Structure formats: C-alpha cells, structure tokens
C-alpha cells in the first residue's frame, strides 16, 4: 500500500511540473530537434522523481525542489556587471532564466568560431549540432535530464573549427531571477579536431527565492583538441540547481573541468565523462564551500573505454554551520582500457559539529594492466596549526583563511586563466573574513 501511495504522490508532482512546462511552445522548432523532445516526453512517462530509495540520489533529497510550485522563468534585462570577472578579457554571453539575452552579451565574431544561441543553431541546422545534440544522453534514464531534453529553452552553442585556437576565454553568465521560477538552460560546446578553447560559466541569481535551474551542457572534445571548462556556482539566496554535463572525448584530446561551488541551497552536479578513445587526458577538479544549510552534491563518472588514458580527479570541500557535502565519484575502467592511469581523491574539512559529508569514491576496474588509486578523507581543521599561526601574530580568522586556501589550492590549480584564479581566491578570502 505504502509503495503505491508514494508513487501516486511523486507522479502528481511530476504532473505539476509537466503542467507548467507544457505551456512552452516548440511547434516551430526544426523537426529533427522536435523529435528529440517528443522522445524524451515519452521517456518521462516512465520516470519518477527520486525517493530515498533511489541509489543515485541516496544522499540528496529533492523534496525542496519537487514540492515547490513554479512559474516559467522569463528573459529579462538586468545589470550583469556584478558578475563580470575583474581583469578578464573575455567574450561575454548572458543567459537569463534559460533564454539567451543578446543585448546583454558582449562579443565579437571571430573567424573559425561559431558562437550563437542554441535556438539559432537549431534553426540553422548546423552539422555539428545535428551530429552531437543528445548524442549520449539517450540511454540515460534520469528524470531531470529527461525534463531538460524535453523542455529546455535555450543556451549557448559554441563550435570551434578545426585547428582553431581561441585566445579569449568565453564567459557565460547563467542567471536565474524571480521567486519560484523554473528554467532549463542547455549548452553545447564542440571543439573540432586540433582546436583549443577555454570557457567559464557562472551560475548566479539576481534576487528571487526558491528558483530552480535544471541545466544541461554537452561538451565534445574531438581528436587532439583541448578544452577547459570552469564552472562557478554562486547563488546567494535560497535557490536550487541541478547541473548535468555530458562530456565526450575523442583520441588524444585533453579536457579539464573545474567546479567551484560557493553557495546554493541545493546544488547537484552530475558530471559524466566518456573517454572513448586512446591517449586522452581528463582532469576533473572541484572545490565546494558550504555554509548555513547548503547542500552541495557532486556526482562524477569517468568512463575509460579505451587504453592509454589518464584521469586526475581532486574534489575538496569545506563545510561550515549545518551544511552538507556529498561526493560520489565513479571511475570505470573497461576491459579494453589497458594502461589507464586513474587517480581520484576527495578531501573534506568540517568546521562545525553540525556539518556533514557523505563521500563515496568508487573504482570499477575490468582491465588488469592499470594504475588506479582513490581516497577520501574527512576531518576537522588542525587546531594545532591554527595555534602555531596565531603564535606568530596571525589572527584566528587569518589562520583559518591560510589553512583553507592551502587546502583548496590543489583542487583549483588546473585553472589556467589567471584573472579567474584571482577572482576565486578572492571569493575564498571573502568567505572567511
């Protein structure tokens, strides 16, 4: 009986979501892409919101998100200057509540770079988009991904031509506004053979409580290409984010993702990386600083399918007050993936007795000639070290700051954009003043 009841309850919640999202009109969309939506809508019939029994969501209750009643987030014109990164010369693109707002963006067209809204790219029926859109999300039966597949509005389409090296980083400012709004943004970044590109995306909000952004990015790194994707999550008010990245690496490619999470009532990151060719390098690093009742969850998957690849993963968390951190990192080494080097580490500092961490690093290895290691630690800040620093004349807060910076450093050393590094350092500093 109980089971039936919960099913009814969750499907009612799903219906409420569907009701709001069904008002979006996609009838004019290019049929190829419309078909994807219809397929996903059918998938949604079979899916339900996760419960405490859903393994993939074991440590993250989505009640806060799914019990809320939403209205659709709308494009707006707002001042984005607060979100620019000082001393950064970048192409700036702005997404507001799942809509690309061209007037707020600041970019110049560059040879060999296609930079536009996803909706425009669909209209143009770009080859790269057709080939890769929804390429490897199809067999994944995850409800939030299915919602985005079916009802995403807009986002950024970036395609870098063969052998093109983009000097200026791309800075996407992905903003949510308003109370109880829902938005589903969607990006696709395609680095063609031999190209190089650096991207920053800031996930922020302007006012508004309990808004929910369900975001998906697809990232394709072709042969010999290099991509660095830096994510800053900093939603100040009580807002919810689920962010999914689907990353696909081809031979000799190099992909780095850095995720820095500073705020957010509920943040869930699903990072799925498929390394489907040899000689790839993958770096996935993250830093999360939780405070108050923040709940920050990072789920990562690196799937090594072919031989001779390296992956390095360091996630570090500092959890204050009553905040919670969740880390689940899976590394698969498939039978074919001999000579894989996979390194994974998660370390956490709890600043109070009421902060918690659930850390679960997992290795699944089906090849025999590999080097893999993983580890997880959770501890308090070293009081002896704090005293040592104080005894040299540094205030307790200053000592804490030094210790936390030192702890965080390894997790962010792969950020190659100096201005961004400084910006993040500064944010860490501000947190511990």
């Amino acid at each position, binding site marked *: 009986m109980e089971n039936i009841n919960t099913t009814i309850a969750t499907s009612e919640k799903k219906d409420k979501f569907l009701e709001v999202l069904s008002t979006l009109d996609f009838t004019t969309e290019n049929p190829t892409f419309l078909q994807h939506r219809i397929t996903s809508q059918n998938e949604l019939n079979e899916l339900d919101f996760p419960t405490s029994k859903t393994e993939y969501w074991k440590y993250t209750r989505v009640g806060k998100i799914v019990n809320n009643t939403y209205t659709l987030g709308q494009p707006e014109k707002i001042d984005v200057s607060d979100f620019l990164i000082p001393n950064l010369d970048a192409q700036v693109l702005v997404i507001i509540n799942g809509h690309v707002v061209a007037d707020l963006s600041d970019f110049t067209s560059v040879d060999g770079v296609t930079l536009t809204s996803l909706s425009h790219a669909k209209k143009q029926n770009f080859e790269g988009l057709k080939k890769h859109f929804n390429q490897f999300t199809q067999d994944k039966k995850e409800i939030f991904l299915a919602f985005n597949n079916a009802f995403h509005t807009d986002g950024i389409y970036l395609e870098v031509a063969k052998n093109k090296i983009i000097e200026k980083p791309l800075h996407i400012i992905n903003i949510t506004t308003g109370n109880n709004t829902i938005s589903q943004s969607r990006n696709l970044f395609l680095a063609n053979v031999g190209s190089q590109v650096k991207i920053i995306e800031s996930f922020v909000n302007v006012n508004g409580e309990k808004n929910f952004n369900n975001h998906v990015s697809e990232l394709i790194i072709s042969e010999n290409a290099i991509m660095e994707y830096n994510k800053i999550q900093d939603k100040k008010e009580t807002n919810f984010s689920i962010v999914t990245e689907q990353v696909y690496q081809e031979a000799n490619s190099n992909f780095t993702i850095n995720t820095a999470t500073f705020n957010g009532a509920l943040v869930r990151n699903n990072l799925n990386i498929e390394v489907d060719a040899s000689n790839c390098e993958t770096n996935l690093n993250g830093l999360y600083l939780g405070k108050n009742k923040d709940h920050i969850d990072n789920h990562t998957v690196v799937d090594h399918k072919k031989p001779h690849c390296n992956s390095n993963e360091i996630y570090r968390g500092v959890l204050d007050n009553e905040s919670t951190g969740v880390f689940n990192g899976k590394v698969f080494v498939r039978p074919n993936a001999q000579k894989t080097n996979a390194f994974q580490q998660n370390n956490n500092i709890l600043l109070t007795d009421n902060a918690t961490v659930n850390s679960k690093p997992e290795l699944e290895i089906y090849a025999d000639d590999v080097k893999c290691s993983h580890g997880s630690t959770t501890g308090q800040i070293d009081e002896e070290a704090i005293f*040592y*620093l104080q*005894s040299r004349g540094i205030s307790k807060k200053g000592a804490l700051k030094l210790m936390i910076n030192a702890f965080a450093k390894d997790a962010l050393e792969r950020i190659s954009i100096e201005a961004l590094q400084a910006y993040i350092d500064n944010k860490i500093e501000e947190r511990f003043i």
Partner: protein
Amino acid sequence: MIKIKNLHANIDGKEILKGINLEVKAGEVHAIMGPNGSGKSTLSSVLAGREEFEVTEGSVEFDGKDLLDLAPEDRAREGLFLAFQYPIEIPGVSNINFLKTAINEKRAYLNQEPVSAKEFLGMVKEKSALVELDAKLANRSVNEGFSGGEKKRNEIFQMAMLTPKLAILDETDSGLDIDALRIVANGVNKLKSPNNATIVITHYQRLLDYIIPDFVHVLYDGKIVKSGSKDLALELEEKGYDWIKNESPL
C-alpha cells in the same frame, strides 16, 4: 620585560604549574632546566596562550600589559615569541607567505605601514643567511618534510623575521648537530640587544657554552626550586637532578 607571579595552570583538571615566579628584564638571558615532565613546555604554552591550559591563579605582566588577557596573536604582536619544542608541519601553507602575513598583521596592530615586497625579500635573504637556512626551505610549506634540525632552524629564522622582545626557546638545541647548534646559538646571540630578552629551555649545559645565560633556574614539579648563575648549569650536569630533588622543600 616579563613578570610572572605565582602562576598556576591546569590541564584536564590536573595541576601542572604550581606557583611559578620569574622576572626577566630587558637585555637578560635566562635558562630554565629541569627533568622531563616538570612543566617547562607547559610554562611556554601558557605564556604563548594555548587555550587547553587553564590558568587558575597568578599573573603575568608583559611590558606593562596583562599578558593573560591577550589573545595568542596579540601576545605575538606585542613581541612574545615561542620557538616550539615540536614545531608542527602545515602542508600547503608557504613559510614565506605566512611570515609576510604575520609581519603585516603585527604592523597593522602597531599602526605601522605594511612591509613592501622589496623590504620583505631583503629581510628573508638576510635572516635566512643568519641561520644558514636553505633558501629552498624558506619557500616550502611550513616545516613540511623538514628534518628535525631544519625545523628548529626554521623556528629561529621566524624569530629573526619577527624580531620579538621576548623569545622563549623550548629545547631548540635538541636534535641539532654540533654545527647546527653553533649556527642557531650564533643567530640568537646576533639578535640579542639591550632591548630584548631570551628564555632558553634546555637539558644540556652544552648550549649554554654558546648562549651564556645571566641566570639559570631549575623547574621541578611545576615550581622553580632553585635559581643561580650559569655555574648552576655546570653543577646540574655534574650532579643530576636528584641533588635538587633532595634539596627541594617538598
């Protein structure tokens, strides 16, 4: 400089310091000796402001201020320095960076201008040469992977950088080879002036051949049971502590 009066301190309800009286004046060097577990490091910890120890009685006046009333960092900023018996390792925190922060926090406290990059580098160069600390060590994380002797040298390097009024050296000599001992002692002597003072805690008379004390005190069971000139150290070396224990009124 420092006046310690009838200082009592507990840890976990157990009394460790049982009424310490000691006065150190500017320009003086005092040596404190005493058997293991007698309370020497406890005394230094209490003076540096370690919170685990509870002061139950007594007072400490440092340069006219109530030392026990100050936070550990303010004690340091007022000019107190403790070279730890067991310096800890702080991975990821650079020696140089933290010293710069320390110096600037001290300067801000004293309403002075922050140190310039150039001035600071000059200081690092000069002071690391003084204690013959490898420049590479100065740039590494605090004590991380340092040998025992290197850690002790790093303590004296920090002391040289911070120019304290009162330095307490807690067994800085133990674990040092003969050359290092001479180097460290030299460093201490070079930093000596009529305006500052030093308390050296040691088990070995040997150090006192290099750093000549004006007074030697024997700490035993939480109290100073005997004080004298530098000859007292020689006498202790010869006769051991049993002699003092027997003389002790306890």
